[in-house]
């Protein structure tokens, strides 16, 4: 119900602040250091000075996790059907078209198969750049297919979340994606195939209230915002300021909802290591 306010906030402001601007140089939004973009990229889009993790997309995560040249994407062209002919101040159809054009993505998730440290792995990764990483029918269906692929190959599944929540313009359909993905994960679980959930900045709303929280192991990137309701909504509801570090990855670790916080440079090694002991 409430996570969209968060998602709007992210689309409006957070987005520009945390993603890399155009040009050669960039400024770290955490420590303010002026950084050479090449150097940041070399450092997996992490500030070399303070360790701040810039928001990145599926392309970057696939390149970080998969062994070079092994990734094969599936159902790349799947797009939203706009089942409700949704119109607010803009037609949803146009919103999709524009976002596809702007981002080069088809929806807020991509998935594929490949090798991670030589192990066959299925990875689905969300893109926050696509309508705030909102979960609609396409996200739900691609996750279901990624799980099917996992079961067929008997290969572990990794889902990387970056999402403001469910996609309002698909109304009840988008809500049902929470149930759809969770039900399908139950099937995967019965087959005893490992599922690692990786939560990145931000993971909120319906995404958190479904697959993101259901990992056999829940991994989070440092500093990632993770929660159900967005901070602004909570602040409005209780009329008080929120405590320092509230809803950050380290906070969830402390409260017992994240197994391990892993810096980006260690993701591949740590997840591979875990999988080698689970499979």
């Amino acid at each position, binding site marked *: 119900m409430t996570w969209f306010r968060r998602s709007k906030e992210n689309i409006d402001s957070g987005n520009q602040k945390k993603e890399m601007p155009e040009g050669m140089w960039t400024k770290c939004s955490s420590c303010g250091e002026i950084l050479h973009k090449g150097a940041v990229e070399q450092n997996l889009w992490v500030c070399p000075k303070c360790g701040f993790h810039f928001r990145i997309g599926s392309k970057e995560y696939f390149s970080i996790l998969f062994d070079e040249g092994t990734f094969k994407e599936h159902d790349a062209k799947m797009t939203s059907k706009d089942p409700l002919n949704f119109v607010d101040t803009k037609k949803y159809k146009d919103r999709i078209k524009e976002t596809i054009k702007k981002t080069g993505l088809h929806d807020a998730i991509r998935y594929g198969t490949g090798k991670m440290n030589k192990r066959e792995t299925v990875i689905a990764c969300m893109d926050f750049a696509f309508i705030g990483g909102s979960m609609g029918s*396409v996200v739900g269906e691609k996750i279901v297919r990624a799980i099917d692929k996992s079961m067929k190959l008997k290969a572990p599944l990794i889902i990387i979340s970056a999402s403001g929540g*469910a996609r309002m313009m698909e109304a009840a359909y988008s809500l049902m994606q*929470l149930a759809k993905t969770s*039900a399908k994960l*139950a099937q995967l679980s019965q087959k005893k195939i490992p599922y690692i959930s990786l939560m990145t900045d931000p993971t909120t709303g319906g995404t958190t209230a479904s697959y993101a929280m259901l990992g056999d192991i829940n991994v989070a990137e440092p500093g990632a915002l993770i929660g159900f309701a967005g901070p602004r909504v909570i602040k409005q509801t209780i009329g008080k300021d929120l405590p320092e570090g509230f809803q950050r990855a380290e906070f969830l670790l402390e409260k017992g909802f994240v197994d391990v916080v892993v810096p980006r440079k260690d993701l591949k090694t740590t997840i591979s290591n875990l999988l080698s002991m689970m499979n």
Partner: protein
Amino acid sequence: MAKVVLEFERPIYELEQKIDEIKNLSDNVDVTDEVKTLEKKVNQLRENIFSNLTRWQRVQLARHPERPYTLDYIQHMTTDFVELHGDRFYGDDKAIVGGFAKLDGQPVMIIGQQKGRDTKSNLYRNFGMPNPEGYRKALRFMKLAAKFNKPVITLLDTPGAYPGIEAEERGQAEAIARNLFEMSHLPVPIIVVIIGEGASGGALGIGVGDRMLMLENTWYSVIAPESCSSILWKSWDFKEQAAEALRLTATDLLEQKIVDRIIPEPLGGAHRNLQQAAMILKDTLLDELKALSKMKPDKLIEKRIEKFCKMGAWNE
């Protein structure tokens, strides 16, 4: 007539008041014919108004302060209800109630979100907005039902899961996610009924089942129309348009193949005749249970997962 009158109900209310006045004046005059004519008129008016409700008007009816809540239905359609409490980890969430009860002599586990009726009871019930322990309490009851092979009935009626600091600390998202996961393969029949407001993940948190039913004057969506308006229109004033765009009524959800069946309400809404509303719900539940009780657990689970996996619309 109900004490709370919605704007679109006002013509009905005014006519009813007029009938009452005439009846009161009738000591020395015979007004039978006049009253009869007016009563006919009021029925026609009611039928007219209620067969042409806008989506926003349905939302208003779903939130009607006199609308029956979970405990009202339990009281009027079951016997031997024993309310159970607590999640056995943290506490007892008053926004979710549940327990064993008999439906026409048949033991069932019945669980639902519970709103309050006045300020005091609303504070006690947290306005029907569950905390994580509410979802965990519900899950405990469902597993209890599964252990003793009893069907589960859940009644959905909430403005949303509670957005608070403690709710986040105790894992609101995890609690809802866990329920979706566990409910998808609970080895007993689950029937889900939206009896009022089906607001997003907070409602869905007890809403995964074999059969999804919706009372006639309810809504179910990913967001409330007001919040949707405030985000997409950047103003609170477009709630009517948002309700239309969200297509959130029972008829809409039946069309979208998310809901299996619409349960009719007494004319004017469930609050106009609780007894009748409860009887219709009871008969529908018995009918659904009969069909589901024939299915083996494995088949039930397989069908349930399949049902949710079909939901959505995409282009390949």
